[in-house]
Each structure stands twice: as C-alpha cells, then as structure tokens.
C-alpha cells in the first residue's frame, strides 16, 4: 500500500510484523493518545546489602540470563569512541548466543567489528537511529534477512514503551558510577556528558548492567541513572577511547561554502518572524548547522536579544552562549565535547534530559514541541522538501535519523542547510531516495545558490522576500543544479527490503531496498 507521501509500504514484514503507513506528521498525534498499549516495565527485588558488583563484563553478562533471540541495547553517548558494544557482542558470540536483536540508540564507525556477527547469525535484527560505514554498506547490500528498523530518538522511546523493542539486556557505559549502579556521564576521565538516551533502557530492560572505568564512593551524583533500575555493576579499565568520546571544544567550520550557507541561514532566521525575545533554538553539531549558531550569536548581541532555551545535541558553542546570557537554559540529551560535561555538572541552568522528555511524541509534551527555530542538515532534499538523512548518494546506509524528524515536527521554523551539490552529486532531487523527515515539517532550504521556501508557508516567504533575500522556486534550483553537475545515472536496487524507516509516531515513512552491487 502507498503511504501519504506515495511510498510503497508492505502491509507485513517477516520478523517485524504489521506495518502502518505514514499518513501525515500530526495525524496520529492529533487523537491525543497512543492506541498501542504500553507494556509494563519489569519490577525486580534486591535484598538489603546484596552486592551488584561483578569482576568482569563477562561475569555480569552470565548473571544476566543470556539466551538465543535476546535483545541487547546500548546508548551511543560515547560516539565513535565506544568499545563496549563490540566487547559485549563478542562475549555473547563466544558463548554461542545467536539471533540477537541489537537495539543501540545509534551505530557508528567504531562498531564495524561486529560485521562478522551479522554474517554468521549472531545478530539477526537491528533497531537503531543511525547506521554508517561498513555496517551501513553491508546492510544496504542485504547481509541481514530481516530489515533493520531506523527510528528517531523520540521514536525509540515509543518503540520501547510499546514493546516493539523488548530489551532483555541493557549495557550502559558510564564515566562514573557507584556499587549500587547510580551512574552519570558528567564526570570522570571518560566523561561524555548527558546520558539521556540510556534512561529508557534502564527503566525497561529485564537486566541492566552499568559499566564504568571510574567507580566512585557511594553515592555517585548526579543520579543520571539511578540504582533502583540497575542489576549489575562492572568496573573495567576503560569504557572507550577518550580521544574519540569528547575532547576540547567543537570548532566552527572554516569552509567558505559552509560559512556562506550559514550566513544565509542566519539571515533567514533573523527575518523569519521567529527571531524574537524568548525564542528557543536548536542547531546540529555539523559543519554549516553549527556555523549558523555563530552568526545568530552575533545577531543576538547586536540586537540585545535574549532567547529562552537551547536544546539537543549540545556543543561548547551552546555553552558559551548560555554563559554569555544569550539563553537562559540548555536542555541536554546528548553532549558533544568535554567542555559540555563540565557545564552539565556545574551549571544548574544546563539540564540533562532523557530522550522521552526530549522527543517522544506520545506524552504530555516533549521539549522538541517547544522549539521555535531548528537548523538541520540533509544528505538529500527533494522538491517536496522531504529530507533524506539516512542513505547516501552511493546507496549505502550512512547516516542517522537522530532527532531530525522529531525537531522538524516540533519547530515553528525548520531550516535545512546543505550545499546544492557535494562531490558532483546534486543534493536537491526530484525525489529523495529515502524519506526520513516529511516535507510538511520543513519550512526553508538554504543552499549557497539560493533559498527555497516551502510553498505551504506563504507568509514566511513574504517576510524573506521583503528582507531582500534571494528566494528561488525549489524546482528551478533543482534544474539549475542539474545543469551544473549533469544528471547522475540512477543506482540499481532489487525488490528486497533491507531497511524500514519509522516516523516518530511509529508509522512507516519509507523503506530501503537492497542495493545492487556495482562491478566492485
């Protein structure tokens, strides 16, 4: 059957179940409740002074009832420095455990070593917000029988509430923890800041292991993860490669192209009608998105304008703006550099939030609903303003849904920034390969070659035109770019579905077909 964006969605997938087609960004939410029942979280019992401490990760896993067909979950706050996901799956593999469902909040390049476990049947299903590198290529080429499920950060919480993801074992790395499992990422030698994505895992997993390289005296504060949900605690030498977890500060790009796009995007925001006292703002950490913050910071200072809060993936740049008094509060679900951890620990206006509060659509209001302006990137965008952030131009799975669709749906102004082409590949398409974020939630596209406003938002377009900005029809820009780059030959795909892209409400917004291997 076709969903409302014209994508063919099967009614049922083996290993996944019934699929509900996407019918509009707010269609399901407008009911006011979620139809799917919420499964109960497990209730456990521990005796006073019973020890949770295990000598090794292996011992903790053995105590956690490992079995065939189990679901194992992880958080990705250690980004590309994570080592525990690979270690855990290696231990399970060596124990002969098979048909594991891997439910990591995201997957990075550092997880490539698990590829053999996909090949040999140790891991047979994956839920994640992002997949990249060799894993992304192998999955695009069809290494798994059952399609992977790509969810948003908010959608993952919903998946766990509804039991679509039923976690048997959650392994939660923490940069500081005590013997009862109170844990945080905000201090210690491997500090990574917010641990927001793991909170739901701790609440719902049948078994929870906190792994730390920094066992502190009881109690470990702040209680980002609290002891009443933790079964086992392990002290290890290292939870990851500190140099890849969080170092120093995030620098603003030097790329003239990114800076040009960022400046235009800041001009768009300034003249949009949403750049007003008390505005709430979110930017990504990537090239052009973060650079937008630089220009917005200057504009705020010039105008003496102060905002309300910043949200999301937090960089040192956001912390600087908080410290300068430009914003009153930071809500931090994920931190990107070392400075952020310090701020999270020491500044009471810098608040750690769980993924549910950040972006789960099915509660009494996640914070993404309160965003005024969000700046997001794109791998591709089409003339209907649908955005692809998951499949690359070469057909591989190489990105992340992350909070893209969550924030876009909540914001009053969603600005997508990207170059009009990258390495000769046009970014503006007639039709994106994979839709992650629906065009109805995207207001403006900013490229170095012009600004395109979604025709559904006429008043915005008028505001921007009146400000003298270079507004183009997205269809015209698409043709203009094709003339520069030449039209790329289309990639070839089979009928097999290797990935399912969930919208945040659980409906299916698109599927990813198996890529035909080219010459190799």
């Amino acid at each position, binding site marked *: 059957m076709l969903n409302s964006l014209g994508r063919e969605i099967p009614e049922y997938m083996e290993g996944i179940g019934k699929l509900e087609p996407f019918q509009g960004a707010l269609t399901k939410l407008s009911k006011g409740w979620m139809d799917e029942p919420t499964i109960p979280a497990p209730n456990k019992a521990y005796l006073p002074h019973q020890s949770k401490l295990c000598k090794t990760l292996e011992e903790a896993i053995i105590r956690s009832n490992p079995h065939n067909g189990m679901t194992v979950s992880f958080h990705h706050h250690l980004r590309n420095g994570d080592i525990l996901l690979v270690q855990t799956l290696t231990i399970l593999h060596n124990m002969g455990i098979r048909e594991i469902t891997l439910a990591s909040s995201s997957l990075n390049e550092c997880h490539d070593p698990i590829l053999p476990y996909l090949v040999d049947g140790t891991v047979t299903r994956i839920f994640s917000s992002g997949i990249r590198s060799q894993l992304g290529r192998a999955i695009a080429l069809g290494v798994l029988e059952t399609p992977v499920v790509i969810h948003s950060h908010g959608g993952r919480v919903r998946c766990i509430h509804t039991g679509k993801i039923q976690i048997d074992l959650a392994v939660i790395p923490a940069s500081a923890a005590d013997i009862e499992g109170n844990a945080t990422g905000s201090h210690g030698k491997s500090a990574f800041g917010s641990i927001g994505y793991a909170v739901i895992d701790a609440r719902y997993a049948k078994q929870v292991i906190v792994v730390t390289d920094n066992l502190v005296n009881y109690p470990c504060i702040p209680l980002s993860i609290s002891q009443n949900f933790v079964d086992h605690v392990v002290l290890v030498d290292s939870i990851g490669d500190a140099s890849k977890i969080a170092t120093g500060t995030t620098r603003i790009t030097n790329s003239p192209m990114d800076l040009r796009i960022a400046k235009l995007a800041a001009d768009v925001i300034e003249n949009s009608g949403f750049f007003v006292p008390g505005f709430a703002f979110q930017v990504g950490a990537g090239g052009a998105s973060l650079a937008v913050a630089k220009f917005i910071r200057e504009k705020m200072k010039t105008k003496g304008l102060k905002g309300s809060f910043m949200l999301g993936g937090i960089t040192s740049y956001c912390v600087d703006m908080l410290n300068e008094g430009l914003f009153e509060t930071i809500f931090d679900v994920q931190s990107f550099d070392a400075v952020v951890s310090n701020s999270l620990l020491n500044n009471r206006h810098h608040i750690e939030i769980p993924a549910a509060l950040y972006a789960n659509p099915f509660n009494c209001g996640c914070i993404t609903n309160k965003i005024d302006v969000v700046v997001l990137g794109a791998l591709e965008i089409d003339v209907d303003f649908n955005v692809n952030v998951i499949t690359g131009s070469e057909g591989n799975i190489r990105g992340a849904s992350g909070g893209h669709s969550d924030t876009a749906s909540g914001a009053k102004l969603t600005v997508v920034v990207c170059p009009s082409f*990258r390495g*000769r*590949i046009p970014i503006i398409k007639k039709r994106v390969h994979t839709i992650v974020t629906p065009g109805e939630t995207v207001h403006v596209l900013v490229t170095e070659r012009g600004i395109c406003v979604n025709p559904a938002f006429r008043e915005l377009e008028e505001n921007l035109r009146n400000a003298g900005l270079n507004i183009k029809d997205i269809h015209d820009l698409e043709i203009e770019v094709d003339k*520069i780059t*030449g039209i790329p*030959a289309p990639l070839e795909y089979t009928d097999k579905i290797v990935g399912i892209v969930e919208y945040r409400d659980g409906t299916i917004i698109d599927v990813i077909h198996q890529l035909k291997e*080219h010459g190799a």
Partner: protein
Amino acid sequence: MKPKIAAQSGTFESSDVIFLIEPLPHNSGRKIELYSTVMQQYGVSFRRIVDEMLDQFEMTDIHLIAKDKGALEPTIKARLETAIKRSLDQQEGTLK
C-alpha cells in the same frame, strides 16, 4: 602526439580530480585507468570526456591515471588539458 615527459595536474581534494600521465614505449597505444568516487553515477561521461580530449590531442603511447573525487565537467577538462600539455612540454609560465 606522444607524451615527452611524465606530468600531472589537479589535486586529491573533494570536487577535484588528479591526472597523471607517463609516456609509454612506441606502439603501446593508450592505457587508461579511471577511478572516481562517482563512477556509478558519472562513469560514462567521465570516460567520454577523457577519450574525446585524448582524441583531440591525438595522444598515443600514453599511460593516463585519473583519480576523481567528484569534479565537475569543466574541472575535469581543464585538469586533463593541463596534464596533456605539460606532458607534451607545451605549458608556459606558472602552468608548467
């Protein structure tokens, strides 16, 4: 014409292409190796541009290696023309 000397032009930067040319012994014809990050999408036109320009200069006994990182057509043509002229020892001034 035949290359007189080994020559190169371009860079390994994204959106650029690097061409390397070396002379081959008499009657060797053309040995062409094209690599591109966008071979799937633009391989056919890339090959066509290279063939046309080598024809235009009537190049033979040439070993040409190209490593493309998504250069646009005008870039590909300019880099290749430069590499060919350098290999023919025809370039002057800063283009040499």
